[in-house]
């Protein structure tokens, strides 16, 4: 049984419907990449899994989210709160703004293990120091006493990773954990995070728009496009044999060494606006292969020769 099973969830925010029938699952110890352009619904999916959707004014209108065999939709807030931070932890997008600026770093990490594991202040501190050291941060004692503004972005993101690990969760949701960081430390952070997750056998849902990061870290990939799943497959299969034209385009957009100058091109067209999604397959206006069928009928997410894809013409 999958650790997390998301089945056909649709989300409404006001009159808008930014997610439609999103389906995927994550096994224990698996790293799943959730890929897509801005506005494709990646972060919203994270909010659904964390049970934080109501905080941004959204509701899940359809589908089910099962975690460790237990349905999360409709679970009382107090039950969700016991899962959050303890069994499902979040690594947020912007480390610069995700720590309370007037509280010491140490106290913010300690808070998690005191709250969820019932540790005393001293044992919580020892545990936090140990975690800080595992994240290869020099002088854990000094960092434990420091305030967020005294740390660099990369250091803050490590602290947030430490916070996520503090109560030994089973699943970590990392929402574009390196987007706000310098390119030079992005790879470092991903590497440390993946290493710690693998060592502990945790499941990781890694949200990113960077196919390079996916190739570096993930076991399986879910490609989102305009609020729907376009394709889902193992990492080897998806790079070797993408089934959805959007995935093909994404892979084509990864810069390669020795590439002819000027040959790197983006995907033509723009991500459709949520207020004006095209009929049929939502990728059809940007697809070089689009037929009349694509404009009339939305393709279902179906099993292909390997994995799942939502394309009428994936096998041709």
């Amino acid at each position, binding site marked *: 049984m999958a650790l997390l099973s998301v089945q056909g969830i649709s989300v409404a925010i006001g009159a808008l419907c930014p997610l439609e029938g999103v389906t995927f699952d994550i096994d224990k110890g698996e790293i799943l990449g959730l890929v897509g352009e801005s506005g494709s619904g990646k972060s919203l999916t994270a909010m659904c899994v964390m049970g934080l959707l109501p905080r941004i004014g959204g509701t899940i209108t359809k589908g089910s989210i099962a975690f460790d065999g237990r349905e999360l939709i409709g679970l009382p807030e107090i039950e969700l709160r*016991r*899962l*959050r931070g303890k069994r499902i932890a979040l690594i947020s997008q*912007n480390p610069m703004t*995700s*720590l*309370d600026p007037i509280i010491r770093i140490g106290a913010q990490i300690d808070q998690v293990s005191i*709250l969820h594991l019932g540790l005393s202040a001293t044992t919580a501190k020892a545990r936090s120091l140990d975690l800080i050291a595992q994240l290869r941060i020099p002088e854990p004692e000094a960092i434990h006493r420091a305030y967020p503004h005294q740390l660099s972005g990369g250091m803050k993101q490590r602290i947030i990773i430490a*916070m996520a690990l503090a109560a030994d969760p089973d699943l970590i949701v990392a929402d574009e954990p390196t987007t706000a960081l310098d390119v030079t430390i992005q790879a470092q952070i991903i590497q440390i995070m993946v290493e710690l997750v693998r060592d502990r056998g945790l499941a990781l849902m890694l949200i990113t728009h960077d196919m390079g990061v996916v190739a570096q870290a993930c076991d399986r990939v879910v490609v989102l496009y305009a609020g729907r799943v376009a394709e889902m497959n193992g990492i080897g299969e998806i790079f070797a044999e993408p089934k959805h034209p959007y995935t093909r385009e994404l892979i084509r957009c990864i810069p390669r060494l020795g590439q002819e100058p000027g040959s790197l091109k983006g995907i033509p067209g723009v991500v459709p606006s949520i207020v004006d999604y095209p009929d049929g397959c939502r990728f059809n206006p940007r697809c070089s292969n689009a037929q009349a069928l694509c404009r009339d009928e939305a393709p279902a997410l179906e099993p292909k020769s390997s994995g799942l894809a939502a394309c009428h013409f994936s096998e041709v």
Partner: protein
Amino acid sequence: MISFFIKRLLLLIPVFLAVSLLIFMIVHLVPGDPIDNLVQNNSSPEQKAALAAKYGLDKPLYQQYAIWLGNALTGDLGDAIILRRPVADLIAQNLPHSLSLGALALLFSTVVGITAGALAAIYKDSWTDRLTMTLILLGSTVPGFWLGLLLIMLFAVQLGWFPVSGARSWDALVLPVLTIGLGGVALVARVTRVAMMETARKDFVMMLHAKGVPPWRIELRHVLRHALLPVVTILSLRIGWILGGAVTVEFVFARPGLGSLLITSLNQRDYPVVQGALLMLAVAVMLGTLLGDIVQAAMDPRVRERIK
């Protein structure tokens, strides 16, 4: 922290000089002559001149200022012309009344204001919020002296719960404190509410929810703590307002205090007393802002960093 304190104290010196000059100028530019209040209507110009010389009022203004400031710095604020006593004594006698009134009004504004603001923010758009906001609107628009009269009519005259005026017992403080403090309550509540609602939208608050921290703990330990930073600034500026409010309110309630002293002396053109009392008020305002800065630095590590 100590170097910050010293730096802020040194910065107060030019402010003090400017304020003292301003006070001196205003008092001497007001039409009217204290000598007229001292002498009979039929006194001769010679008698008047003699009196003016006695109090140093015949000297040029800049000399009068220099003498006054020099003496003030040594604690000698001169002698009252009408009341015929050292100004320092008069102030020492009246200050405790004003301080207890001001401190209680400040405490009342702080405690009630923060509580009301926090409740309104936490229960946003509920009837608690709407009721608080309505009272806040009333509280911030009603002038203190009028509110004071209404309170006297209701609680002192009609219900007889508190004394109408004076300062003989502690319960005589209740109505004046309410009168001065309600405006402060409204201001503090409004700032607290807005600051909390703004903080609640920050990323780190979402992160706290993601960590599974109970909502009441997030509101009190994190959101409210952030909201108190602007509240401290407002309160430190409010000290001047409260002392200014005390001037009219002391008069309405016929309480002894710096305000009553100031108004009485002003009507009699008793320059030394007016100057002394105004200078005390100015010093109190300056110390208030200094205190605000210190509290702010103690609460916010980012402020401490900037000071270094």
